[in-house]
Structure formats: structure tokens, C-alpha cells
């Protein structure tokens, strides 16, 4: 396990690939979501296959999550973006990177690309949106509900019965994060990028949605806001596309990296993997 100290905070970082030891076809930084998420969501899904395709994969646990440090405060969006920016300087100082963001991870990716457009080659945003006043209101509601629900034993028992012990354990761990930090207050109080700032994200963006997710309705708005944004919809999926349909997300990611100039190697080189999944 690798740790990297940024100031007083210790970050759990994982780097995979390229699997063949050759020069990277591309560098991808994978950003996970809030509360129940960690780099594990990528480590066991996209990361090994990307590494096998010759991609250098960088993953880290965001502040408060997984095995990274959990300060009692400091959870506004801009702090997460500071972390991403500084980790980029440390881990990939000399090369632009592709960002893959799941849910809140994509929100961090959009904010980082607005701040440092020259560092980012492209964004693949899975079930994600840039921060906006509407986003802050929505997150406030979700986090308040989670704060109450995840501290409530009957709710946790219901989760265990309906979704299994592992999900219940993740919920319990998210409850500890909310109870032990100011995250639920901080996220809605984040400094929000303006629409003018977001319009400066000139890199290509692929927005991936589940057809059954509420977020899918924002696809047209995001496409009109960003200079170069395309949407794709995964049938039958809700918010957890990455976890529920990892093969589809992998195929989309490989095709997207290739489209933007990455010369992939291994089994992904000719697109066989994508075709076999259709």
C-alpha cells in the first residue's frame, strides 16, 4: 500500500500499469464518489484492464474516505480539488491526464478541469455533474437524509435485509464519516464554479448515465454548457453504473481513450473487448 503526505493529510494512492512495463499509452486518474465509495470501486473494475491496455492508472482515496486521512473539517469541494491538483503535480507532473470521475468524483474532475484546463486531456464522467447552485441544494438534502438514516439502527437493519451485509457495512462506515466530520455541512457550502468557468472546459467530455437515473435528464443541459460534450446512456441502469455494469463502462472507457489518441495495447488494442461485449 502506498501513502503520500500532502501537508498534514495522508493519502492512500495506488498506481497500476502499464502491465507490460512499456511506456504509458495514456495516463488516467480515477476519482471515486462520496461516502460509501473508495478507490476499491476502480481497483476491482476498470483499473486492471486499463493497465493491461498499456494505460498508467492513478487512483487515490479522497479525503475522509477509504484508507486516506480523515480530518474533522475541510470538506468543501475546493479542498477536494486542491487535493487532486496537488496529487497530479506529484504523480504526473510532466504529462496531461485523462480524468475518470464517478458521481462526486466527476464533480471534482469538472472543477479541476475548469481550474487547470491545460493539464486535462479529457473527462469521462460517470453519473456525474459539475457543481452548481442546484447541485448544492440537492447534495444538502441527500447528506441530511444520510446523516439521520445512517445513524439509525432500524434503517441499517433494513439496508442489511434488503441489500446484504456488505452494503450495510459500507453504510455504517459512511455513517461514521458523517458523524465524525463536517462533510455534510461543508459540501453544500462549497465555492461553486460559475457557468463561465465551466464553459472554459475545452477538453472532450463523455458523460455516461444510466437510463433509469434522475441525472440522465441533465444530459442536454450539460451538452449545451460544455464546448465538447457527448452523452451516452446505459440501458436499465440507475446511479451505480460503474459497479453494476463495469464491463460496459470499461468498453466505453477504452473506446474513448482510443478516440482521443491513446494507442492501446494488449487485448484492447483492436477493440475486440468492446465488440465481444456488444
Amino acid at each position: 500500500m502506498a501513502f503520500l503526505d500532502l501537508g498534514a493529510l495522508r493519502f492512500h494512492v495506488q498506481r497500476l500499469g502499464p502491465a507490460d512495463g512499456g511506456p504509458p499509452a495514456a495516463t488516467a486518474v480515477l476519482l471515486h464518489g462520496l461516502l460509501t465509495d473508495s478507490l476499491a470501486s476502480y481497483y476491482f473494475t476498470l483499473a486492471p484492464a486499463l493497465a493491461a491496455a498499456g494505460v498508467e492508472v492513478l487512483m487515490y482515496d479522497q479525503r475522509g474516505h477509504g484508507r486516506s486521512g480523515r480530518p474533522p473539517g475541510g470538506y468543501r469541494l475546493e479542498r477536494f480539488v486542491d487535493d487532486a491538483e496537488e496529487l497530479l503535480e506529484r504523480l504526473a507532473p510532466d504529462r496531461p491526464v485523462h480524468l475518470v470521475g464517478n458521481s462526486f468524483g466527476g464533480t471534482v474532475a469538472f472543477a479541476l478541469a475548469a481550474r487547470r484546463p491545460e493539464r486535462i486531456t479529457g473527462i469521462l464522467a460517470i453519473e456525474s455533474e459539475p457543481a452548481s447552485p442546484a447541485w448544492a441544494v440537492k447534495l444538502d438534502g441527500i447528506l441530511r437524509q444520510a446523516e439521520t438514516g445512517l445513524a439509525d439502527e432500524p434503517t441499517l437493519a433494513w439496508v442489511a435485509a434488503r441489500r446484504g451485509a456488505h452494503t450495510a457495512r459500507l453504510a455504517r462506515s459512511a455513517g461514521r464519516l458523517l458523524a465524525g466530520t463536517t462533510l455534510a455541512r461543508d459540501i453544500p457550502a462549497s465555492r461553486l464554479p460559475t457557468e463561465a468557468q465551466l464553459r472554459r472546459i475545452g477538453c472532450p467530455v463523455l458523460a455516461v448515465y444510466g437510463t433509469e437515473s434522475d441525472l440522465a435528464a441533465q444530459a442536454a443541459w450539460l451538452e449545451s454548457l460544455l464546448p465538447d460534450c457527448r452523452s451516452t446512456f446505459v440501458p436499465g441502469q440507475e446511479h451505480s453504473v460503474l459497479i453494476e455494469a463495469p464491463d460496459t463502462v470499461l468498453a466505453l472507457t477504452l473506446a474513448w481513450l482510443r478516440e482521443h489518441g491513446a494507442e492501446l495495447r494488449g487485448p484492447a488494442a483492436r477493440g475486440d473487448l468492446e465488440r465481444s461485449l456488444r
Partner: protein
Amino acid sequence: MNGSTETGGTPATDQAPPTDQAPPTEHQILAEIAGLLAVVLDEYGLDEGEVTMDARFAEDLGLESIDLVTLAGHLQERWGERINFAEWLAGMELDEIIGLTVGRLVAHVADRLQTAGRS
């Protein structure tokens, strides 16, 4: 998978010294993995004798997915590049990973070490 000794010697016990010549038995691998799990689950603790071949990582031992990432690091430190836990798990469905037993990992490690020993 043969759960007992395959080397034809005396039955393996926890006290059996690891040998560099022969690949370790499943029993020895189980003992080593139990030791690694104790390190991974440090803050929650692990009951004596809880790590059996049938124990499931998530359901029975209480590992979260991020704990499996940590375990992957320890496995690689112990047995090197021969064990690529992430790649092995990436080939599985999520339900399969959640229901994964210690025994399946032990069998996988034994298989990889034997293959590596022959090459």
C-alpha cells in the same frame, strides 16, 4: 482442490517451517493468509479460528472492498508478481467478489505458486 498435503510428507501443521524447495501446502497458505488478514483488520480485530477455508471475506470476516485492496498489497509483498489479486478479482462479478471465500483465494495462491515453481 486437494485440501491436505500433496507433497507426501508428514501432514502440515501450523508449526511446519516454510520450505524454499517445495511450494507451500494449502494449509500453510491458509495460515499465512490468516496472518495477513489479522494485519488488514487490525482496528476491528479478528476472532481466533475465524479464518477458515469456508469463511467469506465480506459476509463472515467483515472486510470492506477497500480492505481487499489492502490485502492485495500484502499478498503481492508476500508472494510477489506471481499473485495479481486485482486482475484475478477483476474477472469476477461483484456478487462473486462479495461472496468470495478464503478457500478460493488459498486455492488460487496454491495454484499460482505451483505453476510458478514449475516454470
